[in-house]
Structures are given as structure tokens and as C-alpha cells.
């Protein structure tokens, strides 16, 4: 592995021209990542981006790193193999809400419970883009699309709640309209040892334009985004007049600070070992039309899977010595024929 190299955005940019629709939120995420990579002090050759299928999944082609555009839903599983084989590398997983929460939901939850050292960027646009506009597992109930002309019937997933339920050790949310927030969140996720999931609200301006506008537009953010800051009381609002408390039922509840007093506010602690409070916070908004928490919900330490798997090899070598095929073949009873 190379020593903290000095790189620029150009070092992280491949010679392939992005083929997303003009105005797609994916461009701003790509730029945020390419601008951030030089700041985390790693080398392109020690970095691998792995994706599944979907618009977001084209991402690796545009990064001048090692990359694999794999098959639909399987990126977390491919990345698990890569991270186990090469624990010294930085492995990133890119996918959309259909890729990661529908066809690949199983792999996502198992990667998170194992705590494999991968950084997962989940581009959530609440729609299937590449297949031209069917509803997704994060679409709101009643979504009218080509496949649901009378409205969708499915209750959507809240990706943050799913991740917390799957024992994820790092869970965060950001959005494509705020590059600085994205970069800070990605850096935190990258620094985390274990599976880190970042949900990114991402606008699909062709099939689901403005899905998050009510909360991510510049003039709406103060009112509609609830920044989570570790160690700070949870507050938001144009004049910081709103806050979050843990109510008598253990749920998180939005209140006027003036009504409860500042000392009653919930102080955000992303390191709580019990995920219940983080889960409660994730339930504050049922969709991007209510005040919605962004930032790091949870960041806890737990043994990392690939390092432990590698450690088992070392222990086995200590106990049994290096492998010897001649001895292996004679490890059962043998007999001689003269």
C-alpha cells in the first residue's frame, strides 16, 4: 500500500465521459467523491469501486481506480469477496435503491451485519431510472408509475431504519444538493472500520424530478432538514426554534424548543451501542415531505469481518504451520503396497 500520496481530482477521474442524463444528481455525487478522494490520503491503485446495476452503478467507470460494474443487486457480495481477499484496500460499493434494497436487499443486510470493511453509497432517488420509471422499494405508497398506473401498494423501506435493523455499525444520510455535507459524510464513512452505509437523497430529474425538493431546496433546508451533530442537542428550524426530544414512549418527537426548554432536548450520541435511539430518530420522517434527519445516525465499533477472517488464517498457521500437501495427503490412515 502506498504512503499517503498527494493526488488531485484529475488523478481520480477516468478518461470515460459520464453518460447520465443532463441534470442528474449523480453528477454532483461523482464530483463530490472525486474532490474528496485527494483529501483522504489514499492512492487510486489501492481503491476499488464495485457497483451493481442501475444508473448509479455506472459510477465506477468514471473513477480512475480499480472498478467493477457487476450484476444487479450483488455489489455488496462482490465487495465482500474483494474486501476479504484484499483487506488492505479501500473498497467502495455504489448502488441505487432498487439495486441495494430490492434485488440486492439480502446482500446489503448481510454485509452490514458482518461488518465487512466496505463503504456503501446508496443513491436513493425513489424510482427505477435505468428501466425507465417504475416505482422502487423506497417510493411512497400510491406512486403512479408505468407499472403502477393505479398507484403503488407497497409500504416503502426507510433505508436508515433497515441499516440500523441489520446491525450496521455506521449509518448516515446526506443529499446531492450539498457537496460539503456529502464530502464530510463520505469521509466519516470511509474512516469507519467496518460496513458504513450512507444514504444519499439523489434527484432523478427525468423520472422522479423534485422528489426531495421539499426538504433539500436551499430555502427549505433550515426548516426541513434536522442536522445530527454528535454531542449536541438536536435542533433545527430557520431560527433553530425546533428540537427533538425522546418522549415517554421512547419515540423521537419534534417539539418547539420554547415549549420544552433546551435542557429537555435529545443530545445526539452516535456512539450509543444500543441502536434503539438512532432507530427512533430515523422514524422522525415518513418521507421527504416532513422534517428529515441528516448526518451520522450511528457510528460504533465492532470487530471487522475481513480482518478477523485474515486473523483466522494467521492463527491456523501458528497452530498447524504452513500448509504441506504431502502431509495433507497422509493425514488419514495410510498403508503401503510394496
Amino acid at each position, binding site marked *: *500500500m*502506498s504512503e499517503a500520496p498527494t493526488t488531485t481530482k484529475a488523478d481520480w477521474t*477516468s478518461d*470515460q465521459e459520464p453518460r447520465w442524463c443532463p441534470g442528474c444528481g449523480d453528477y454532483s455525487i461523482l464530483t463530490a467523491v472525486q474532490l474528496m478522494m485527494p483529501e483522504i490520503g489514499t492512492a487510486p*491503485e*489501492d*481503491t*476499488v469501486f*464495485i457497483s451493481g*446495476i442501475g444508473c448509479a452503478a455506472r459510477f*465506477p*467507470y468514471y*473513477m*480512475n*481506480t*480499480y*472498478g*467493477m*460494474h*457487476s*450484476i444487479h443487486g*450483488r455489489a455488496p*457480495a*462482490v*465487495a*465482500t*469477496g*474483494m*474486501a*476479504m*481477499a*484484499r483487506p*488492505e*484496500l479501500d473498497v467502495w460499493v455504489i448502488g441505487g435503491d432498487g439495486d441495494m434494497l430490492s434485488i440486492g436487499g*439480502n*446482500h446489503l443486510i*448481510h454485509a452490514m451485519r458482518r461488518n465487512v470493511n466496505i463503504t456503501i453509497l446508496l443513491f436513493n432517488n425513489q424510482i427505477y431510472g435505468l428501466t425507465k420509471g417504475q416505482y422502487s422499494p423506497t417510493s411512497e405508497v400510491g406512486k403512479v408509475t408505468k407499472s403502477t398506473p393505479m398507484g403503488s401498494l407497497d409500504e416503502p423501506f426507510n433505508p436508515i431504519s433497515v441499516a440500523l435493523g441489520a446491525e450496521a455499525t455506521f449509518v448516515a444520510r446526506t443529499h446531492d444538493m450539498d457537496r460539503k455535507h456529502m464530502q464530510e459524510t463520505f469521509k466519516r464513512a470511509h474512516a469507519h472500520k467496518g460496513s458504513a452505509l450512507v444514504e444519499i437523497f439523489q434527484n432523478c430529474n427525468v423520472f422522479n424530478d423534485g422528489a426531495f425538493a421539499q426538504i433539500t431546496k436551499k430555502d427549505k433546508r433550515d426548516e426541513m432538514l434536522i442536522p445530527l451533530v454528535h454531542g449536541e442537542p438536536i435542533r433545527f428550524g430557520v431560527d433553530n426554534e425546533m428540537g427533538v426530544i425522546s418522549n415517554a414512549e421512547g419515540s423521537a418527537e419534534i417539539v418547539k424548543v420554547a415549549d420544552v426548554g433546551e435542557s429537555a432536548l435529545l443530545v445526539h450520541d452516535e456512539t450509543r451501542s444500543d441502536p434503539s435511539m438512532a432507530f427512533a430518530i430515523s422514524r422522525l420522517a415518513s418521507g421527504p415531505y416532513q422534517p428529515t434527519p441528516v448526518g451520522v445516525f450511528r457510528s460504533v465499533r465492532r470487530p471487522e469481518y475481513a480482518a478477523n*477472517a*485474515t486473523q*483466522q*488464517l494467521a*492463527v*491456523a*498457521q501458528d*497452530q498447524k*504451520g*504452513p*500448509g504441506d*500437501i*504431502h502431509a*495433507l*495427503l*497422509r493425514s*488419514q*490412515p*495410510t*498403508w*503401503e*503396497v*510394496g
Partner: protein
Amino acid sequence: MTDTASTPEVQELDRIVVRFAGDSGDGMQLTGERFTNASALFGNDLATLPEFPAEIRAPQGTLAGVSAFQVQVSDHDISTPGDSPNVLVAMNPAALKKELHRLEVGGTIIVNTDTFEDRNLSKAGYDHNPLETNELDNYTVFEVPMTSITKEVCKDIDGVKPRDAERSKNFFALGLLSWLYQRPLEPTTEWIAQKFAKLPQVIEANNAAFKAGHAFGETAEMFDYTYEVKPAKLAPGTYTNIAGNVALSWGLIAAGQLAKLPMFLGSYPITPASDILHELSKHKNFGIRTFQAEDEIAAVASAVGASFGGHLALTTTSGPGVALKGEAIGLAVNLELPLIVVDIQRGGPSTGLPTKTEQSDLLMAMYGRHGESPMPVIAAYSPSHCFMVAIEAARLALKYRTPVMLLSDGYIANGSEPWNLPDVSTLPDISTTFATAPNHVDEDGNEHFWPYLRDPETLARAWAVPGTPGLMHRIGGIEKEDGTGNISYDPSNHQRMTDIRSDKIAGIAKDIPATWVEGDEDADLLMLGWGSTWGAISSASKRARAAGYKVAHAHLIHINPFPSDLGDVLSRYKRVICPEMNMGQLSRLVRAEFLVDVESVTKVQGQPYTAGELYDVIIDAAG
């Protein structure tokens, strides 16, 4: 041992076939394995056929719960577990009822009479006690109260209750058979001591039962003869008794060492392939990472990821798992990365007969993927052959940067035979090289790494692993431009890439041995087989030749591509008969490829062919 008044006469036999049968909980697999192992260490040739129900413990005493283990022990080279047993050990009425039809007429039955009471008889579907009628008159029946004698000899052992003692009755049966067939006792007593080292009272009970069984034979004056099968005249060497899945696992481990690469196994438990996951997981000191994935798809996908990372990667499964892995195998075809896919075939479709054998995944191995996605297909023909075929799978995967399908089946996976251990220094070097420097210079003199530049001989592409400075590149499932590997939707490029992928696999024919043919060169009849039918075809052919018929036997290890001389070989015979444990899959491939009128003979009963069945096929055709 005490001398008795009437020491039975010793008869020498050239081979015996013994079938142990009892309830799933009676330990018949273990008993059979121990009898086998003692015979192996004595120097006999042998072949085994374990047969057990899919249920871990079907209702006690029922026909569904019968578990059996058949072994042929011989003083000469054999290749099957035998057609009809000479001896049936029946631990309960269900075992007798279910297995009796297999026994040769005039054969010997040894029953545990303690279980022949109303409840067990009725569970087995008997409305009477067959031991009290004349229905077994065509057999020699030895009635032995195994349970009660075992309980009696264990009654004074501290900490062994009668219920525990009863569980040792299989060792009584083993002791009796060991006496009857003059098997050495030490391998079994040593095994008991080692296996139950932490449970001294179990050692004592099992030993007591084992010795009691042996002593019973010697003193009961029930048996007129004991039998001896002399050691076989096998080629000189060091032998071990090997099961197919163990040989396959060891072959894979050896392949990693011979390739000088770390190994990665992504797998999901499935019968009858799980033993490979278990075995490889025991040998992490060889640098093998084993990953029990959340499902079959993750198992193969993780292996693809590890392969991209520069590991020798594999996934092990059975037919239903291969079906689930199909898309990811297609990805590996497109990425042109090495990957070994092991399919231990079982009866299908769907759950089918999970503990029984079949060869019905051949066409899936060949064609069971989307798009034009050729990959090498190779098959093991016997338990010990699994070792070399695993190394061959790795050689092809690494050399040609391709997924390889390795086919075995439940019969050779669980069956065992003596194996003359290879000299490790004679195993092939299958190491490969990673790209370490750019391989293309553009018009402006700039250096690039093009992942799809190829070796002109093998058509294998350059393999650069992450962590290599300057060779960063992206690969993916979308069609790519030849050379650069960049996404390309160009029509002629897709044709070109499809042709290259096809030519690359077809070209392997130049790199594999000629067709393996045995028997009479001037025969009119060729028996063509692949996989585990080898033992039965080979044995039947030998028997037919001994009876004066002319027959040749060709057995395929490489099925895609076929050996380059296969068409010529087939054309030398007037008739080609292809026995398979499917509905005629190889015969279709051969007919399509060579326009040869192959006659298909098929069997899909979850049971391997017996040599007798194929002997009849041969004499019908050659006679």
C-alpha cells in the same frame, strides 16, 4: 481369544459385497466406514456406496428411515461397490424389508433379532415376523440378539445406562462382521480411542460391544465358515481410503499451492456439496479463506470479487445452486476472470433427490446461462480422480481466465476407494502471472493498461490486480471494446468479442489429452461415458471381454471442449452406446457435434448403474 471346540473353516474369496442397513440412528454409515477402513488398511481394493435418507432422522423404525452402506472388498482391482450384496446386515425389520431385494439369492442375512417385535414389525409394514415364516428360506439367516448382548456386556461400565449401551450395538455388528471376514481389529479399536478420547465411558462401551460381537462369532457355533479376502495386488505406493469430496477438497487446496495463489471459497451449504466447505474450512493454514455466504448468489459473487482481487476463487454447490449462480457465472465469462464452479450433482429438478446421485446437470453446465457464454466443463470419474480434476479445473481457469465447471456427483462425492497417493513433486505447476506494467502505448507515446489485450496463443486477457500502481482499470458486465475494455455497443465489436470468447474456450482442445479409450481396438462396439459411470462401464466391459465379447470404452473427462480426436475415435466403431444417469445429455451433445448415431441408455433412479446392468447392455449389443 479362547479356542473353541469347533473352529470354523476358513474359505478364501476373491471378493465380497456387504451391505449394512439399519435405522438412521443406528450408525450404519459409521459401521460401514469402519469396516471399509479396516479392509483398506488390510490391503484390499474396495469401492463404497453410502445411501441415506434426506431426512436427518425419519420416524424411527420406518422404511423411510433406513440408512444403508454397501462396500465391495476385493483381492483384485475393482471399480464399483458391487451389484448384489452377498451379505445383508439388517439391524431392524424395516432394513430387512427395504433391502432384501438387493441381496443375491442364497446370500447371507444377519439380523438383530431384538428389534423383531410387534411394534417394529408393524412400522416396517410386516403383519407377521418374517423370521418365523419360510419366506427367507432362500437365504442363510443368522439371528443374533445384538441389542441385548450389547446391553449385557455394558451393564457394569460406570456411567453407561442401558439406553446409552444400546447405541453401541452397531459396534457389536461390526465386531461380528470383522470376525466373519477376518478383518483386523486394531484400526477400529484405535479409531474408537481417538474419536471418543474425551468420553472414556463411550470408548469402553463401544469396545465392549465390538469385542462381544467378535467373540459371539467365535463362540456361538452358528457359523460354519469364516471368510478371507486376501490383499489386492495393487501398484506399489502409499495408499489411503479416499472419499470423492475429500479428494476434491484436497485437489483444490493443492491447486492453490501449485498456482502459488491465496484461495477464496464462497459457498452456501447444500447436499451433497457441503463437505467441501467443511473440509476447506479446516485448512486455513494453506491460506484459504472460506466464506459461508448468505445465499448461493452471494457465494459466487464473493468469489468473483476475490478473483478480481487476485485470488484463486471458487464456489461449491449442487444443481439448484448452479441454477442460482447462473447470472454471476455469466458475469465471470464476460469479465474473463478465473473461477472454479464445483457442481456435486444430485437428483433433480428442484429439491429432487438431494441425497441421491444423478448426472442431469450436464446440459445446464454447458448451456445453462444467458447469452453466448461458453465455459470449460470437466468431470471427475471416481472418488480419487476428484483430486486431479480439481487441479485441472484450476489450471484451465487460470491459464484461460475463465470460469470452469467441475462436475462430480453424489455417488463419487460420498463413495470411497483406495488411492495411490501421488508424489507431490510430480504435480503440475499451474502458476500464472499478473500484469505489472502498462501494455499499450498510444500514438502520443502515452502508456496505458488495456485489460482486454490478449495472449495470442491462449487468447487469455491480461490480469492486473488492484493495488498495482498505474494499471487501474474498470471491468463490467456490459459488452466491452476488445483491447481497451471500455464499454462498447458497436455491433461488429460484439460479434468479435463473442467470437473471441467462443474461440478461447474451443482452443483449449489443443491443450488437453486425447480421448481416453480402453479395451479392444478392433471392437465394433464403443461404450462412451463421462463422470461416475466409469466404474460400472469399466467393470461391465472387462466382464464382457472375459466372456469373449469385443468392446471398447471411451470415458470423457473434458466435455467442453471435447478432446480434439473424439470425432475420429467415434468414427472407428460401428455402434456407440452412451449410458448416463440422466435422460441422454452427453449423447445429445455428441450427436449434435459429430453427427454420430449414439445410442442412449439412461437411468434416473437416484442409484448408480451396476456393472451387471451395463454388462447386459453390452452383450445385447455385441452378441
